[in-house]
């Protein structure tokens, strides 16, 4: 057996690939599902926190700042392990999917809050004053005047953070979430051949490359205005 065919047999083994592609495919569905869930709840929570923080009450702002700083300091894996092994002790067991979703949502929310808050700060105070002077309420002024400008500034840093956080769904393998990496690892040990890991890499590229391309488009469009 030549070295070349040994390499192919080890990493691009068609027989192994054929047997395990359904598992990798299912993993892709789970990765996409948990990723979408994280993006939706994480950015929504981050936006809500940034808006609450801009309300101007210390009592509201302080816990938000603490939350954002703690969540940005902790490795996401630690958050997941704490939730996965800590919550059952409190009588609140969560599924691997729920733990991955909640943990990464909290992490993304912390970064999203910081990005959007920075965007809000960059909008001159005269903007809200002008809106209020025409009779708009605080929330109306925020929604129609301040946030559209703040989000435009927040989107470029936010898209990078969304990609980084959704890629961390791979950490779900640690709590036995059957996403791409976990399924690939299982298949690898089952088959005694690392081809499923190569398949996992391809699967990640299929899932995340479009996101990277999309983010470039978004940055180009929103970065200008």
């Amino acid at each position: 057996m030549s070295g070349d065919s040994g390499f192919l047999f080890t990493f691009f083994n068609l027989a192994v690939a054929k047997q395990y592609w359904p598992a990798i495919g299912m993993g892709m569905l789970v990765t996409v599902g948990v990723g979408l869930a994280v993006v939706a709840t994480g950015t929504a929570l981050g936006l809500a926190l940034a808006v609450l923080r801009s309300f101007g009450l210390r009592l509201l702002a302080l816990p938000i700042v603490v939350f954002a700083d703690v969540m940005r300091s902790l490795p996401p894996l630690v958050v997941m392990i704490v939730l996965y092994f800590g919550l059952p002790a409190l009588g609140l067991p969560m599924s691997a999917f729920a733990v991955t979703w909640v943990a990464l949502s909290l992490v993304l929310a912390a970064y999203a809050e910081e990005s959007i808050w920075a965007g809000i700060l960059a909008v001159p105070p005269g903007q809200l004053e002008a809106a209020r002077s025409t009779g708009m309420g605080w929330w109306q002024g925020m929604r129609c005047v301040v946030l559209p400008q703040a989000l435009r500034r927040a989107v470029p840093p936010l898209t990078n953070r969304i990609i980084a956080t959704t890629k961390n769904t791979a950490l779900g393998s640690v709590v036995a979430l059957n996403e791409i990496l976990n399924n690939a690892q299982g298949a690898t040990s089952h088959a005694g051949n690392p081809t499923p890991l190569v398949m996992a890499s391809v699967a990640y590229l299929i899932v995340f490359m479009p996101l990277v391309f999309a983010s470039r488009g978004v940055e180009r469009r929103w970065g200008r205005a």
Partner: protein
Amino acid sequence: MPILDIAGLHKSYGSTEVLRGVDLQVNTGELVCVIGPSGSGKSTMLRCCNLLETPTRGRITANGHEVTSSAVNINHVRQDIGMVFQQFNLYPHLSALDNVSLALRKVQRKPRDEADQLAQAALEQVGLGAKAGNRPAELSGGQQQRVGIARAVALKPHIILFDEPTSALDPELVEDVLNVMRDLRQRGMTMLVVTHEMAFAHAAADRVVFMDGGVVVEQGTAAEVFETPREPRTRSFLARYGSARS
């Protein structure tokens, strides 16, 4: 009855007293110009009239509503009190038309096409009907400020407050904005204008108010204040400022 009545207005920031008891009335259809040195409290007084600043003490009544009452619906009262800002404060993400129509739609709850028609009419009144689709960044400073005036006018307020409307403009653009204000005066709009444009105040104002040190030092017709000022502080201000600028 005056349309705007300011009585005993005080405003402090910490221990710094910016306004020390301002009394001022503006009658319907009047153009009142407020002049005075920087830091005299002119802008603060103006910003108290629609509660962009909260007065420390005193009473302000606008169009029969007590602005300073704790029971007032300020969003309601502000629709009656237009404001034009030194830095224009146009919404950069919206077209000129949307800048003007936003409050018509969101505050007065007018349907889109009616709001757009009113906004277009307001833009035409300030000579910018052709710029309705342009973003603020595509307009000159003078044009931006005219959009700012249209935004205030469109809500059909009873009075418009002008906070140094031409101070941020290049000199050659000032006259366009002043002409729009003269035109508003012709149409009977009540205006309270904080300004450094002495020639404009002299020629166009029904009444001129001189403020210094957080109080109204002197007021009267433009001719009285500019030509025969009674107070020494007014005289020295006009000697320094008036002759230099106009």
